[in-house]
């Protein structure tokens, strides 16, 4: 015999699969929505199977119990939430997949809560026991999910606000929010005679303020500076000129963390360029780097002026027009007694478009040959 409870579950499962089918045909067969609806269908059929199997919803005994039950079913907000979820689902289908997903989450949560609550309410005639059963079944899911949801909402809303305002104001807002939380906490702790309603009011107010400003900030988008940074890709290209560039050389490195596996060290001292190879004591005029091989070159500046090391790696043709472009790589501007590393991996031999050289802009006429056999 199919019990009432499992009928309910199987019904939802059927609706879910129908929804999935419609969704698949109308919108997009590979969308995540289909997966979600099918997931609901499968989950509900499993729940239905379990209830059928355990007979917890057995209508015969339960209906008797209800008639003699002293406590009427408690007020429930789950139907309301279920409806809300349905609305979100419909709205989301036409507008935004995130709203759609939210709808699914709300429906699943409300459905499970409702189902288990109604089951628990019929579990016995003792309402305290019923509440206990419900809590036993659900708190372990409710607690972490609610807490996780709260963290997510706060973190996302807060970060949207911070992204929208300037960094200075952001820091101030951060301080203000934190202080407000602390202050309210201390206030409540000290003033023991505060009314519960006023506390609740403050909390609700805070929550609403956070959500609303977060929503507005999210709509208005990121602050100008971040938008331009994303669009212009400030740090993605290296400027190998003689003078310092705005972004690439901003706060340039002073030391390197690589100490091992240095192929060669190139120094500038008294305006003179010199190179030394690992394993050899005498300075060399040519640095040989094996083809396609990762090589680390250290650049050490011992002069007062800032310098950078540039590796000139021949030319390449760009596009079909045959415009020739130089291939260069370089370190940042390096101050006095500072060191920077240049990581090179050269795939083409110097015979192909060479010669390759190391130069330091500003020290004209000096170079160190770079041979890639």
């Amino acid at each position, binding site marked *: 015999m199919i019990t009432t409870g499992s009928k309910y579950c199987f019904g939802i499962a059927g609706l879910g699969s129908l929804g999935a089918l419609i969704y698949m045909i109308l919108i997009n067969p590979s969308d995540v929505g289909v997966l979600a609806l099918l997931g609901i269908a499968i989950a509900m059929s499993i729940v239905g199977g379990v209830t059928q199997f355990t007979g917890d919803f057995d209508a015969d005994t339960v209906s008797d119990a209800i008639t003699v039950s002293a406590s009427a079913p408690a007020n429930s907000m789950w139907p309301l939430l279920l409806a809300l979820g349905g609305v979100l689902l419909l709205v989301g289908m036409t507008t935004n997949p995130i709203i759609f997903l939210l709808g699914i989450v709300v429906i699943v949560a409300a459905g499970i809560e409702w189902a288990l609550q109604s089951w628990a309410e019929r579990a016995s005639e003792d309402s305290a026991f019923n509440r206990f059963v419900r809590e036993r079944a659900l708190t372990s899911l409710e607690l972490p999910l609610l807490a996780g949801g709260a963290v997510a909402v706060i973190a996302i809303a807060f970060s949207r606000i911070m992204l929208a305002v300037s960094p200075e104001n952001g820091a101030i807002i951060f301080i203000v929010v934190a202080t407000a939380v602390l202050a309210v906490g201390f206030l409540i702790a000290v003033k023991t005679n505060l009314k519960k309603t006023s506390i609740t009011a403050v909390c609700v107010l805070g929550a609403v303020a956070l959500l609303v400003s977060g929503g507005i900030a999210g709509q208005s988008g990121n602050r100008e500076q971040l938008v331009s940074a994303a669009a212009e890709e400030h740090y993605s290209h290296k400027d190998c000129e003689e003078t310092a560039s705005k972004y690439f050389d901003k706060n340039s490195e002073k030391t390197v963390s690589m100490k091992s596996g240095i192929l060669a060290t190139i120094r500038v001292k008294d305006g003179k360029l010199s190179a030394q190879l690992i*394993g050899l004591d005498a300075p060399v005029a040519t640095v040989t780097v094996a083809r396609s091989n990762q090589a680390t070159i250290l650049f050490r500046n011992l002069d007062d002026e800032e310098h950078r090391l540039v590796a000139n790696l021949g030319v390449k043709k760009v596009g079909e027009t045959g415009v020739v472009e130089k291939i260069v790589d370089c370190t940042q501007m390096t101050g006095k007694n500072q060191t920077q590393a240049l990581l090179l991996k050269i795939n083409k031999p110097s015979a192909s478009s060479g010669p390759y050289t190391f130069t330091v802009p500003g020290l004209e006429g000096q170079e160190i040959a770079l*041979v890639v056999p």
Partner: protein
Amino acid sequence: MSHEGTLPVSKQNMTIFGGVKSQGRLNRKKTAVMAFGVLFMAGCARDAPQDTWQPKGENASNINTLQWIVFPLAGVVGVAVFALIGFVLWRYRDKGQAIPHQSHGNPAVEITLTIIPALILSVVGVFTFRGIFQLAQTNDTQMVINVTGQQWWWEYDYPAQVVNGVEISQPIITAGQLVIPTDTKVLLRETSRDVIHSYWIPALNGKKDAVPGRINLLRLQAYKPGIYAGQCTEFCGLSHANMRMEAVALEPADFATWVANQQRNAQQPAQASLAQEGEGVFLNQCIRCHQVNGLKKADGTAAIAAPDENVYSGAAPNLTHLMSRNTFAGAAFDLVTSDCRKNIWTASPEQFGAAYLEGVSPKCLNQTNLRRWLRNAPEMKPMYADPTKLASSDGKYRGMPNLNLSESDIDKLVAYLSTLK
């Protein structure tokens, strides 16, 4: 049969470790038989090319000295401990004696037995300390060679330098066989293009890993001319077992000859010969990865290989002087027939140089191996060369794929390759 005076004893020592000690306790009565067996083995065992107890150069000799301290010491300690255990097991077996006195130990004995091994080890420690710094010395280097490992072969590049008065004016690139002059302190600068490999010529020195992004130094020196076998010893993927190398030591004069030859470009094959057709095949296929110095395209420009576009490591062996080496494909296969190989490997130090510099003569060429390789390389040496499975490595091969050459193309190629002296 070994001619090294120290060898029989070292073998005996090794066998003590493998055989007698482990089973000595099990069957005391057979110990004598086993000891006899050890002597017998010591007489019979022939040298394996990668034996770690037959140093042929200064660094390996230093290591060997240390081995000769620690192995016998360990052997003596082992025998003493086993004698003690054997005695206890025999003496205190259950003969129906009363339950013994419940003694809980004797601190004086305990402390003595802690101090004795500590003393022995500190002696070993002093020698170890000296050995480590001896081997790490690089400041009297006479020659530098860059060694680069990749799946699954070694590339050697000799930067421009003057060695024992012989000038290497432009870099030499070769693969598979490392050629060094005798009695010269050679510094290898090891690195790798893909995964970690390890360079090991047991007769010349211990091993040192070739780590990508790092440069590790390893010093080699060979007393006498000869060919010394080695093998990659850091697991490096599919064909790790097939990644071998050989170090060839030549008298300085012979080395000069070798350098002069290596610096020459490849010769154009004779007009209208099979080899010239082979050159065409090479330009069509092989040049994608393999460089031959001096090879020109039909329009007269230099042909430059682009392994970086086809192979993940971005390198393939330079074949300009293929026939000057007697192995190929990461020293895994012989380029010479087994008879010719034997002649080179067993040549006396005086004759070795001439035998090696002769290269692969037409009668010595191992056609079977070379043709099999050209027909289907990954079948001979496992490599990641399936064109359908290259998604993870940017569509590039790791190793040489099957080129599906026709038999006539293979004939032509073999003719061409054998001109690359």
